[in-house]
């Protein structure tokens, strides 16, 4: 069995073979013995198709979530593309809108792919489905990009639980951003060094991200945070592809995340007891929601 306990093991493997991080991810999964190479690529394609399907159903949907806090944001971004004030590229608009659409579907209790969690489920689909549609990339490249993202998440998960309750949002949208940065570099054909640098650069900028959701819902700030994270991952990937090197190596960045997670107050770990969840607006909304839940309105 191929084992990557640390990112430096992965890098050494990729340099020795030589192969990309996505190819190493494919061989790792194959070495677990449950699926053939073809089945793994087909599995990745199945996930990409579910991601695209979630985005398609959410993109122009204006239904609100049960709480009413989110819904219709992705449509607004898609519409804004045509405004004379629009200054980002079509690819970037899609990355933002697709991540929003995924999280909006999530908050409507519809079907998504947890990647690595539901709270961070918009980031990787946002960048990969946008690249799929805007760049003429071969399917296998996208499949391997998704597997590269998965391997990044897998190696991080050796050292920290991937949940806001365990380590704050750095373990959810944070890790998703690091995964997405790796996916982008893999998708455009970067080197293994660039791939892991992209992840390191992305994660350094999400360290300390707390999980302080309004009323305990995966909506504020989660939905828009996912919308931002694809651009964040793109910036990290661009720096890495330009051969900017992370001063702190990726394994040490993960160690730092773990340490910050341990130092973080439980009030900022998915308990809705601090930060944004305790703002006046959030407290008032939470009280309203509590009353509504006690006297639920009739629904068709």
């Amino acid at each position, binding site marked *: *069995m191929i*084992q990557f*306990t640390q990112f430096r093991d992965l890098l050494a493997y990729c340099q020795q073979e030589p192969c990309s991080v996505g190819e190493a*991810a494919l061989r*790792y*999964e194959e070495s*677990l013995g*449950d699926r053939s190479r073809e089945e793994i690529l087909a599995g*990745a394609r199945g*996930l990409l198709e*579910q991601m695209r399907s979630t985005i398609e159903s959410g993109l122009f949907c204006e239904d609100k979530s049960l*709480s009413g806090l989110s819904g219709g944001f992705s449509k607004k971004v898609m519409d804004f593309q045509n405004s004379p004030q629009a200054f980002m590229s079509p690819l970037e608009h899609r990355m933002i809108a697709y991540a929003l659409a995924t999280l909006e*579907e*999530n*908050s*409507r*209790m*519809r*079907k*998504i*792919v*947890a*990647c*690595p*969690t*539901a*709270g961070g*489920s918009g980031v*990787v689909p946002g960048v990969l489905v946008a690249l799929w549609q805007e760049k003429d990339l071969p399917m296998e490249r996208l499949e391997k990009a*998704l*597997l590269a*993202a*998965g*391997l990044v*998440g*897998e190696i991080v*998960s*050796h*050292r*920290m*639980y*991937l*949940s*806001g*309750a*365990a380590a704050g949002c750095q*373990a959810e949208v944070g890790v998703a951003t690091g995964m997405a940065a790796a996916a982008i570099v893999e998708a455009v054909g970067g080197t293994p060094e660039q791939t892991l640098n992209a992840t390191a650069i992305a994660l350094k900028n999400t360290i300390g991200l707390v999980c302080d*959701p309004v*009323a*305990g*819902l*995966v*909506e504020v700030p989660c939905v828009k945070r996912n919308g931002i994270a694809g651009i964040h991952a793109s910036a990290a990937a661009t720096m890495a592809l330009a051969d900017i090197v992370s001063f702190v190596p990726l394994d040490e960045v993960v160690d730092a995340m773990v340490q910050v997670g341990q130092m973080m107050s439980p009030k900022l*770990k*998915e*308990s*809705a*007891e601090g930060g944004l969840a305790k703002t006046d607006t959030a407290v008032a909304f939470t009280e309203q*929601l509590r009353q509504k*839940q006690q006297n639920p309105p009739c629904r068709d």
Partner: protein
Amino acid sequence: MSSHGSLFDIMGPIMIGPSSSHTAGAVRLGLLARNVANVPIRQVTFTLYNSFAKTYQGHGTDRGLLAGILGIGVDDESIRDVFERVKETPLEYSFIPNEAPNHYPPNTVRFDMILENGNPLLVIGHSIGGGKVYISKINEYNVHLRGEYPTLVMFYQDQPGMIWKVTQIIAEYNINIASLNCTRKEKGNEAFMAICLDSLLPKPAVEAIRNIPCVYSVCNVDKIPS
């Protein structure tokens, strides 16, 4: 924390939102508790601790747990309407958020169940992120059960030859053992064995194991979908 698992555990499950730990994890804990029971459940009280206690309504943890107990999977859109679905069944249920300080991990639920045969069953489970879960207690016994394999869980009086007796029965049914874990409190006292299998043991095999002298309790727990 996991080590060297499938990439499809990181990118997945395909699930109904909004939270992998609080919704999908809750469904999978419900499914696992249902598999531990292995007979219809008449009544269940869910006691929620820590983050589960504080945010269970907003995250659909209540819907998820109930869906799991009813056998509804993580990617089934009927999770959303489970409070309607449950009315069509005889199941009685209640939720108790318990915010008192405790030593449990962040997302913990205690299932106090009454089974169809009138027997009580206690299960304590934890959701550890990305939809991954484990059970740490069945009745008075400490266990570690993740639902990744069909598992035979048994409690017995520590004595020589017990592993041989049990594995012999499993071998007669030609079922492969993936892993075997046994521990005991002290020599000659109560011991615990968990045998992960490549397929679920048939009922006669479970009965044969239950009839081995000095076996206190046997649970034949099917795996839950990944």
